[in-house]
C-alpha cells in the first residue's frame, strides 16, 4: 500500500505479516471531522467490532410482543451469534445460543414457534426452553441420568434487560447497565410507547429482511442523516407530493441531535409544533382517525394534544436499533461488506385504526422493494464499492461542525441536515474500539 501512497501519512490498518494482533490504532482512523475508508472494508476491523461492540455493549435483540405466550420462541441474532429468544413457563424471557452442548449442532431450525423444549436433531439431546439439559438418549453412556446435566446446557446470553418491551442483551458478563447505555435514548422509546393509548408498542406485523452488500456502519450513519432525503428520495417525494422532503431542508426548523453514547436523532418536533396539527406526523388528520384520537385523549388527557402533534421518534439507538417513526429497523452485521436490514411496522396497542395503515405505509416504503428503502440500499451498496477506492482516504463528517450548539439538556444539536448524529456515532465507536 505504501508505494501507492508515498507522500501521505496513511494510518496503519495493516500490521506486518506474523505480528501478534495489536490491530489498528483506532484513534488514527476516527477523527472528529472524518473517518478512514478502511473502517468499512477491513475484515480485521470487522472482527474487532464483533469483540469490542457486538459481543460487549448492549445490543437490541427482539421485542417481548414477539413471544407473548409461554413456550413462544423466535430466532434472533447478536452480531454473528444465532440466538433463540424464548418465553419460559413463568413468563421470563431467555436468550439462548443456538448450539447444542454435545456436538454444536443447531438445536432450533425454525424461525419461530412454540415449544417447551428444543431437541437437537443430531443425537436427540433435549433442552428446556430456559437452556437446561433434560435428556440425552442412551444415557448409560454418560453414567445415567443426573450426571452431566449441571455441566452441559445451552449457553445463556450473560446479560438481558428490556425497556418498553424492547429486549437488549450484552454478551459481556460485566459492564454498564442497560439504563446507562440507553441514556437519553430511553426517553425516545418511552415517546414511541406513548403513541399507544395503552402505552405499549407491539412488533407483531412480521419482518422484512433486506440483504445489503454494504458495511453495517453505513446504515447506522444514514439513519439520522438529514442531508440525503431530498436527493435519494426525491423521486418518491415528487411523485406523491410528499411534505417529508421539506422537513430535511435548509429552511427546516427540525434539528439533528447527538443523544450521547452513540445514539442520535432527527428531531422533527419543531416542525410539527410549528404546524400544530394533530396527526400531521402520520400524514393524516384527526378527522380520519377519530377512534384513535378519542382513545388517546381519554388515556392522556391534556397531554394528548402534545403527543398527537409531535408524533413518533426518528432515533438511531447504537449500534443496531432504528426507531424510524412508524417503523422499527434492526441492523444485523454479516461481514465487513454485508449486512441484513430487518424492518417492521410499529403496531400500537389499542390503536387498530392506525395499525393497518402503518403496515400499509410501511410495506410501500421499506424492505427490498420499498419506495424509500430500496434507494437507500442502492446508496449503501454503491458506497461500499466507493470505499474500496484508495483516494481520498477519508469520509468527511464535518457538515455543521461550525454551527453546533448545546441544548438545555447539554446535548449537541445541529440543523436538520447536519452530520451531528454521525459524529456522535463515531465518538462512541472510538470509545468502544479504542478501549479494548
Amino acid at each position, binding site marked *: 500500500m505504501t508505494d501507492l501512497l508515498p507522500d501521505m501519512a496513511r494510518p496503519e490498518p495493516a500490521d506486518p505479516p506474523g505480528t501478534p494482533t495489536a490491530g489498528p490504532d483506532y484513534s488514527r482512523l476516527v477523527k472528529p471531522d472524518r473517518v478512514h475508508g478502511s473502517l468499512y472494508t477491513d475484515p480485521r476491523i470487522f472482527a474487532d467490532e464483533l469483540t469490542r461492540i457486538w459481543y460487549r455493549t448492549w445490543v437490541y435483540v427482539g421485542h417481548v410482543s414477539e413471544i407473548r405466550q409461554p413456550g413462544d420462541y423466535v430466532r434472533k441474532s447478536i452480531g454473528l451469534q444465532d440466538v433463540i429468544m424464548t418465553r419460559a413457563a413463568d413468563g421470563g424471557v431467555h436468550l439462548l445460543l443456538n448450539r447444542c452442548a454435545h456436538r454444536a449442532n443447531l438445536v432450533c431450525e425454525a*424461525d419461530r414457534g412454540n415449544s417447551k423444549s428444543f431437541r437437537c436433531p443430531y443425537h436427540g439431546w433435549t433442552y428446556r426452553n430456559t437452556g437446561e439439559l433434560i435428556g440425552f438418549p442412551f444415557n448409560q453412556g454418560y453414567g445415567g441420568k443426573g450426571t452431566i446435566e449441571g455441566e452441559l446446557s445451552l449457553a445463556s446470553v450473560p446479560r438481558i434487560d428490556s425497556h418498553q418491551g424492547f429486549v437488549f442483551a450484552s454478551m459481556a458478563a460485566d459492564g454498564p447497565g442497560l439504563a446507562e447505555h440507553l441514556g437519553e435514548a430511553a426517553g425516545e422509546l418511552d415517546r414511541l410507547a406513548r403513541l399507544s393509548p395503552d402505552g405499549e408498542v407491539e412488533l407483531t*406485523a*412480521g*419482518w*422484512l*429482511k*433486506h*440483504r*445489503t*452488500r454494504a458495511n453495517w456502519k453505513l446504515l447506522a450513519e444514514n439513519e439520522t442523516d438529514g442531508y440525503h432525503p431530498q436527493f*435519494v428520495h*426525491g*423521486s*418518491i417525494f*415528487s*411523485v*406523491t407530493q410528499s411534505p417529508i422532503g421539506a422537513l430535511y431542508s435548509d429552511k427546516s426548523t427540525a434539528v439533528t441531535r447527538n443523544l450521547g453514547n452513540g445514539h442520535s436523532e432527527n428531531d422533527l418536533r419543531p416542525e410539527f409544533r410549528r404546524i400544530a396539527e394533530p396527526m400531521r406526523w402520520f400524514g393524516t388528520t384527526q378527522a380520519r382517525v377519530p377512534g384513535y384520537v378519542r382513545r388517546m385523549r381519554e388515556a392522556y388527557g391534556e397531554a394528548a394534544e402534545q403527543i398527537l402533534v409531535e408524533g413518533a421518534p426518528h432515533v438511531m439507538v447504537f449500534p443496531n436499533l432504528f426507531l424510524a417513526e412508524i417503523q422499527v429497523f434492526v441492523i444485523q452485521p454479516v461481514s465487513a461488506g454485508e449486512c*441484513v436490514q430487518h*424492518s*417492521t*411496522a410499529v403496531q400500537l396497542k389499542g390503536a387498530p385504526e392506525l*395499525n*393497518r395503515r402503518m*403496515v*400499509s405505509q*410501511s*410495506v*410501500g416504503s421499506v*424492505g*427490498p*422493494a420499498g*419506495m424509500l428503502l*430500496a*434507494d437507500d*440500499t*442502492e*446508496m449503501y*451498496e454503491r458506497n461500499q*464499492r466507493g470505499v474500496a477506492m484508495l483516494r481520498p482516504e477519508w469520509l468527511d463528517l464535518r457538515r455543521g461542525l461550525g454551527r453546533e450548539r448545546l441544548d438545555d439538556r447539554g446535548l449537541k444539536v445541529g440543523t436538520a441536515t447536519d452530520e451531528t448524529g454521525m459524529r456522535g456515532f463515531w465518538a462512541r465507536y472510538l470509545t468502544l474500539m479504542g478501549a479494548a
Partner: protein
Amino acid sequence: MTAPAGQDLDLPQIEQFLYREARYADEHDYDAWEALWTDDAIYWVPAGGDLTEPGGQMSVIYDNRSRIATRLNQLRTGRRHAQSPPSSLRRVISNVEVLGDTGGDTVVGANFVLAESRERGVETWAGRVTYRLRLVDGELRLAGKQVLLVNREQALPTLAFLI
C-alpha cells in the same frame, strides 16, 4: 383446455398473455405493463410467514391499483436510484396451469425463473406465480398477481424492478 367456469379461455390464449406480461416487465415497458391491470388489481409479493392476512402483515410488495401507479411513476422519474440504470432482466414462465376460477376470474398458476443483472452482480429469482385473469371487453386483463419467491424466508436483495 378451457377454464372450468365463467370465462371461455383456452390455454394458448392464457400463455400468450402471461408471456406478454413477462416481456413488458423484462423490458421496463411501464405503460404497456400498467395497461394490463384492472382497477381492482392486487400485485402481491408476500414475505415469509402468514399468507392469510396481507393487510395486517409485512409484505415485500402489496400494491393496489393506485400504488401500482405510484410505483411506476417513481420508476418513470428516472431518479429511482435502485433502478437507475434499470436492471437487465429475462424471465422464463413455465408449468402454466389453469387452477380454477374465483369471482368470475380465471386463476392460473405458473413457475418462473428470472435472471437480473446489475453492476452489483447477477441475481437469480425464482418462484410460483398465481394470476387472476379477467376478460374485459374481449381483452384479457390482470386482476391479481401473487409472486411466491422460493427464498422468501431468507434475506432478499433489493427488488426494485417489476417481478
